């Protein structure tokens, strides 16, 4: 019986089992659907609260405001703050935690005197609590105080006949050595910036590598190999004339599709979040702007993300085949779930460790040869993809080498699955 036919029969059976197994489906699909949805709800809740405060202003109480009339006037002019002057007695009677003001600014009596003598005047800021909104309010107050302080500094410098450059004797410009123009994800126009890559990278680098672990192929492969031994179904297949290679590829293909679906769901979530993150600020900043420009911004962002996903798929497809085949080779050898768990535990440690290694220990100038290192090469390529330093030759080397490793790993899985010393363990 030919391999192609066996592959189709095994693939159809594995897919049928997978689709009917509601528990497995739930644990496969729930994380990428539920977790980002919860995150979105949390962000939406915080966003709504933030928007309310941004529209109305953050409530700030000033104690002893008469000691700093200039500062108080400056704060009152800010549209981001609602300033209320209160006496220290009022604050003493009302605990800060119970007041409506998110921030309380206390001015010392000698504030103005310190400024006039050219010294540093000290203020005290008290947060009502440590929530996100209060932290934003604190930032807004700091920003306004900073602006007022800068104005005072300019006045002092003017009296001395100096300007700001006098305070900064050395200026340093920093650029990245790897030419962004050569990167496979370089912006279309020279000088145009794209923050899509960085934003996506933060989401995808860990997700792309570990989503396979948490919800993709890992559990399914264990089930189709060691699971068959534990359920004692494997011998019914072994006593047929079916090609073992066909059986292996059929099983792997079903697991691969499940892995891809899970990864695809993560990507859809990532694309949505990135679009919101990338285009959202532009939309907010461009109140009343030309709708054509806004549409162009959305379209350009979409193109950037589309290109990234295409390259990411090129990198991840052979990578998933490598991981699935290696796990299948081991699980075909393992005699029980317990034994397979030892290997899987190691894998669960090694993959995140490789992500950390790629981030902290292997610099972008380490050389193109790193892209050809098994498993690590793909992780480095994904990192460089999002930092816009992945050049075409690096991408090609990563995809080609990983595809080669995928074939070797597939051959290894087929070899182990056709060996008596592996298959009869545990049956």
């Amino acid at each position: 019986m030919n391999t192609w036919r066996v592959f189709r029969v095994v693939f159809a059976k594995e897919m049928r089992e997978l689709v009917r197994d509601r528990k497995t489906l739930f644990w496969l699909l729930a994380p990428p659907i539920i977790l980002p949805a919860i995150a979105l709800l949390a962000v939406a809740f915080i966003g709504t609260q933030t928007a309310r405060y941004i529209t109305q202003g953050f409530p700030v109480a000033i104690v002893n405001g008469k000691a700093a009339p200039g500062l108080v006037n400056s704060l009152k002019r800010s549209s981001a703050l609602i300033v209320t002057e209160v006496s220290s007695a009022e604050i003493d009677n009302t605990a800060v935690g119970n007041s409506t003001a998110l921030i309380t600014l206390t001015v010392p009596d000698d504030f103005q005197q310190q400024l006039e003598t050219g010294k540093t005047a000290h203020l005290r800021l008290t947060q009502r609590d440590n929530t996100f909104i209060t932290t934003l309010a604190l930032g807004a107050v700091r920003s306004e105080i900073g602006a007022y302080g800068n104005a005072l500094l300019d006045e002092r410098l003017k009296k001395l006949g100096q300007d700001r450059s006098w305070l900064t004797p050395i200026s340093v410009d920093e650029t990245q050595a790897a030419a962004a123009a050569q990167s496979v994800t370089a912006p279309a126009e020279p000088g145009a910036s794209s923050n899509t890559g960085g934003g996506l990278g933060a989401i995808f680098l860990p997700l792309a590598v570990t989503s396979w672990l948490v919800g993709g192929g890992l559990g399914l492969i264990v089930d189709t190999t060691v699971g068959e031994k534990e359920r004692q179904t494997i011998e019914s297949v072994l006593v047929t004339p079916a090609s073992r290679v066909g059986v292996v590829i059929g099983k792997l293909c079903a697991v691969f599709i499940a892995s891809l679906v899970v990864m695809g769901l993560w990507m859809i979530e990532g694309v949505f979040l990135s679009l919101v993150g990338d285009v959202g600020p532009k939309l907010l900043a461009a109140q009343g702007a030309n709708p054509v420009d806004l549409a162009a911004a959305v379209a350009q962002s979409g193109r950037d993300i589309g290109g990234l996903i295409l390259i990411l798929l090129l990198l991840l497809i052979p990578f998933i085949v490598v991981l699935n085949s290696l796990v299948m080779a081991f699980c075909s050898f393992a005699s029980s779930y317990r034994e397979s768990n030892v290997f899987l535990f190691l894998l669960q440690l090694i993959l995140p460790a490789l992500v950390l290694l790629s981030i902290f220990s292997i610099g972008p100038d380490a050389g193109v040869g790193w892209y050809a290192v098994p498993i690590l090469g793909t992780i480095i390529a994904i990192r460089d993809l999002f930092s816009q330093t992945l050049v075409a030759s690096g991408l090609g080397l990563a995809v080609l080498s990983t595809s080669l490793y995928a074939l070797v790993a597939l051959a290894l899985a087929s070899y182990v699955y056709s060996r008596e010393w592996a298959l009869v363990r545990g049956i």
Partner: protein
Amino acid sequence: MIHVEHLAKRFKKFQAVADVSFDAQDGQVFGLLGPNGAGKTTTLRILSTVLEPDRGMATVGGYDIRRDKAKVRANLGILVENAGLYKQLTARECLRFVGELHGLRGPILEQRIDSLIHDLGMESFAERKTSGYSRGMTRKVVMGMALVHNPQHVIFDEPTAGLDVVSTRAVRDIIRRFKQEGRCVILSTHLMDEVERLCDRVAIIHRGAILAMGSPSELAQSQGVDDLENAFVKIVGEQALMDEALREAEMEKQR
């Protein structure tokens, strides 16, 4: 016909099969009788090509188990002891899956499945998922999976273990029918009355070697006793039977 000549198989330090030779003829039921751990299942796994022998040779329907594995598998059906089922598939789908792996397809396969469902009395549960099946129902489906390609040679390893009376009778009827159809049947069991009822010839296997062979009455006669059970105990020895439990545990460890 199944021909076995000086088969031997070792798992690390444990000699599971030392020297097994026999012939099982078409139209006969050949019994492989031995205590637990005697080497019965290992011998049958070698015949079904799941295991490779270290020494010796065997043919199934004239096909060598080393050189013509695919042809051996196509001509042999084996009912494995404790075999399980795919829990998300129905009995019919399990039969179809194994049938397709044997290269069957289309109306021929469907007719064969219908016939097995009828013969094994699976009509009431054949379209239901196998999760929740009783042991008897599971054994029937597993038997169907072993027979779906209509093999000339059939091996039953402890076919009635754990079955109720009705299911046991049904299995025995099937074995008798196979014999009448001229198939070659090997029955591995440790149930004496089953062997006496069904087998034309019996080999008593102990510590991986054949100790005696003949019809049940010939074996009893040769030992000067009136039934197979007494003959078996005399041939193997009472102390040896107790040692077998330890031997079986050792074999599991070595694998």
